[in-house]
């Protein structure tokens, strides 16, 4: 029997999950909602349902990777989750797609460095996967774009049928993207508590994390969706569909590998791939630059906040 009090530390993880949902839902449905192709309510309901499904069915692999970076206690896990949540919230308020994965790993590393207990092997695996995420998504986007273009051109259809096909595709692939988001990123929300709470196993952690992400999607993702939709490149429905599918495939692959990666980096990589096919003049480099700055700032900010939190807790109460 799990006591409610023992679940209290998960509040930090829940907050982080909420923040992740608020920020990352834009990466799966932002382009469709921003272009008013899919209603926000439809997107939010689908996204939240599929996130929970992905988290519960395939979310445990990432938990094992994150829990191997450093040794955690319940208190340091809370520090990590709160530090990562604050980092992610700051980026959300700035309406920039930020990487919760990077915020969490940065925060975990902050604890690792503060306690002098860091395992760099899984960290290296994570870093390699982060680099491969936008590159892989870009490559997949180029292939998907060319294949889909060849198929669509051969199909005789009216402009209304074309709209219908694209809307269906955006909903289908957005739902797949939400599933991949849950499967890959749930580890970021509650993974740091793996093995620390009595009666709470990894499957329960994925369920709690999934529900927290879903809550963030429903309550706060609308504004970020609207900013991603028109931000980086003028996206038509076809390009949006290719971008979401490519990002979803990439993120799902890394969910199976067991490394939480950034859906933000995935979607931007896909958009860059499409932009290269259509001509780089359609890309908004100013916004790309801001996003790149955000990506570098995020793990760094997570690291500083968690290390500072650890120092404050240690200074006030002694070593946690």
């Amino acid at each position, binding site marked *: 029997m799990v006591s409610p009090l023992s679940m209290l530390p998960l509040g930090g993880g829940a907050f982080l999950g909420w923040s992740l949902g608020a920020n990352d839902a834009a990466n799966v449905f932002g382009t469709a909602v921003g272009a*008013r192709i899919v209603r926000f309510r439809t997107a939010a309901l689908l996204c939240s349902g599929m996130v929970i499904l992905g988290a519960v069915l395939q979310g445990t692999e990432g938990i094992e990777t994150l829990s191997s970076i450093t040794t955690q206690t319940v208190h340091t896990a809370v520090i990590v989750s709160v530090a990562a949540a604050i980092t992610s919230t700051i980026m959300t308020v700035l309406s920039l797609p930020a990487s919760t994965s990077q915020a969490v790993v940065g925060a975990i590393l902050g604890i690792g460095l503060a306690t002098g207990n860091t395992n760099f092997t899984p960290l290296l695996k994570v870093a390699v996967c982060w680099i491969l995420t936008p590159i892989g998504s870009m490559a997949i986007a180029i292939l998907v*774009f060319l294949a889909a*273009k060849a198929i*669509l051109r051969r199909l005789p*259809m009216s402009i*209304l049928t074309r*709209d219908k096909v694209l*809307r269906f595709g955006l909903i289908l692939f957005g739902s797949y993207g939400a599933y991949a988001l849950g499967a890959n990123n749930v580890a970021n929300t509650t993974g740091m508590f793996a093995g620390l709470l009595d009666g709470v196993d990894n499957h329960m952690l994925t369920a709690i994390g999934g529900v927290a992400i879903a809550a963030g999607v429903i309550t706060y993702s609308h504004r970020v969706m609207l900013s991603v939709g028109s931000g980086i490149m003028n996206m038509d*429905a076809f390009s949006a569909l290719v971008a979401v599918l490519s990002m979803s495939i990439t993120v799902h692959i890394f969910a199976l590998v067991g490394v939480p990666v950034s859906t933000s980096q995935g979607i931007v990589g896909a958009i860059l791939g499409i932009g290269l096919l259509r001509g780089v003049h359609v890309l908004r480099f100013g916004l790309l630059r801001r996003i790149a700055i955000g990506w570098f700032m995020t793990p760094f900010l997570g690291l500083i906040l968690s290390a500072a939190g650890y120092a404050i807790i240690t200074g006030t109460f002694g070593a946690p």
Partner: protein
Amino acid sequence: MFFRSKQKHIEAGMREYREKAAACVSAFALGMHDFCETGDFERLEEQARAVHAAESEADDLRRQIENMMYERALFPESRGDILDLLETMDSVVNQADRTLRSIFDQRITIPREVRQFILELTEINERCVGLMLQASLLLFDTYTSASALTGKMDELESRSDRLQAETVQWIFTHDLSDLQKILLRDLVGAIGEISDKCMNVGDRIRIIVVKRMI
């Protein structure tokens, strides 16, 4: 599916609009032909009323289609494109209506020697409208083929322009009163305006297709 039935309604509406617009322009051409043959203003007035009635029906249909668009059936971009297209097509039908009416209102008499020009000009513009309506319907069938017809519309419009110029030259080099010259010149211009407005529709169709080409 819900969306499918809305799509079918819009497509059916567009086909019906096409029929009404075609009926209006056919009535216009018939009116011009009759008037050139008989010079009968009473008969012309009846035919002008028939053209106006067809134009009004086309207008009503257009508004129905526009209302269907706003029931959230389409992508916002497609909604905007189709609404603009309908408005531009409507200007073609209005032009035919106005032109025939103006002959009656201004009691324009068409000299025998000018009639062949007028009839040929009317026929070219009517054909141009036919192509325009065909091209607009293709958007709701195989949209990638729609812009192919705009090239043919372009040819007809150019022919119309040349014939207009030739007709106006004839009018001003022959023995007609100044008032008659001006009225006939304006009439020729008004008929030629039909194919000009068709080209506006053609341009919109081209843009709609290009925007959707990947």
